[in-house]
């Protein structure tokens, strides 16, 4: 079965990779459906910029950890497999952290411990155990990318609302016009605190579940 090159987009939509990505964005989204990786979703979504960097870091980590673990899946001794997986994940995260400290220093200070906490993020270990150990490297890489993209979509969505409502800005640029403030509009301070994040994530999850049931 070859790809139908006269209608490339249709062919792309039928490919496994696309379906995997779409599934992770919607039907099995790691945050809203699988309820994984919540704590970092709360902490780094105060601003859109930190959410974007965190999303990129996590997506790359889970994709490459899946790739490496899948490539080694027949070599890893069963009795030490969790430790081996965590070692590989930790190495990738440390490298990512060092890169951030070298090239995006100010953002790395804002992200502080949360990049390191990617090691403990359930999504990464979950996909390693649940997919990479029993599937070939390339599909595992795509699965990692897909879950990373699903996670990123929620992170960016939550950060969008939290930064907009909580400080009137997006990516650091003032978006709410001055006239609103003069008319009495005030930033919703709750959005900058953890309860605000819980509420937004809860609403996202509820929305997604409702739409999926239809």
């Amino acid at each position, binding site marked *: 079965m070859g790809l139908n090159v006269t209608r490339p987009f249709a062919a792309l939509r039928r490919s496994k990779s696309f379906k995997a990505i779409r599934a992770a964005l919607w039907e099995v989204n790691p945050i809203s459906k699988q309820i994984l990786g919540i704590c970092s979703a709360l*902490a780094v979504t105060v601003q859109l910029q930190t959410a974007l960097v965190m999303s990129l870091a996590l997506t790359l980590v889970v994709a490459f950890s899946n790739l490496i673990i899948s490539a080694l899946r027949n*070599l*890893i*001794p069963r*009795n*030490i497999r969790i*430790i*081996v997986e965590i*070692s*590989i994940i930790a*190495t990738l995260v*440390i*490298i990512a952290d*060092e*890169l951030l*400290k*070298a*090239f995006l*220093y*100010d953002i790395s*200070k804002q992200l*502080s*411990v949360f990049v390191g906490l990617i090691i403990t993020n359930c999504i990464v270990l979950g996909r390693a155990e649940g997919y990479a150990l029993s599937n070939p490297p390339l599909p595992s890489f795509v699965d990692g990318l897909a879950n990373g993209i699903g996670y990123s979509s929620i992170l960016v969505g939550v950060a969008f609302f939290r930064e907009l409502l909580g400080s009137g800005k997006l990516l650091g640029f003032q978006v709410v016009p001055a006239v609103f403030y003069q008319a009495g509009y005030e930033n919703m301070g709750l959005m900058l605190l953890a309860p605000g994040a819980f509420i937004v994530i809860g609403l996202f999850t509820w929305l997604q579940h409702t739409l999926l049931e239809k």
Partner: protein
Amino acid sequence: MSDRLKSIVFAAVLCVVISLLLTAASTGLQRFQEKNVLIDKHKNILKSVGLIEPDRTYPPETIATLYQNSIREVWAEPDGTIIEKPIDGEQNLPIYLYVKDNDIQAYIIPINSRGLWGRIYGYLAVQSDGTTISGFTVYKHSETPGLGGEIEKEWFQKNFVGKKIINLQGEFVSVAVAKGEVDERIPEAQKEHYVDGISGATLTGKYLTVGLHRVLDEYEPVSIRFRKNAVQFNPVPRKSHPEGS
């Protein structure tokens, strides 16, 4: 090979590979990271004297120029005299001077205090009257985010501005972190020697208080000189376009 042996060999090989990778990453990136840390240090010194605003981002070149033009890195002898270079065999303390129009506006003391989970590093700037604090910044710590970690926030640091390190009798009292709010807990006469505490971070406040006291006490000879207006250091104007000599 038995299963157990296979596990041990695999683990050993994995450890060696990972160590090589991490060492390569760390040494390869060290240059860039150190440069960033230096810029951050300069930024914090400039922030402690109010030369840059806390909420804005500045390109590295701006920081470098501002620092070059306004800050002098010097040393203090045990009796408080300020000298250009440290003298071997003497206990010299590092100190930074904020210089404007050939006049010393403030002196900046590097703070290295015990914290709850690790050391707290920052800068405390005192005006040239040797008494009033002009700014306080924290650039490295290991405190809990949201609790002790609030020491790196603007709201905590700006409370230090205007506080005094000597009392009306001229005795050194340093500045302390109160337990709770200064307005509610501290008697009127003492208010200018305390800043608001952080709720849920009493220990961080305690350690920081002790740390500040110790460091400021170390630099008292310098402060005393400033109070008496007896600082004899003449800031040499920097050449802005050094020709190759």
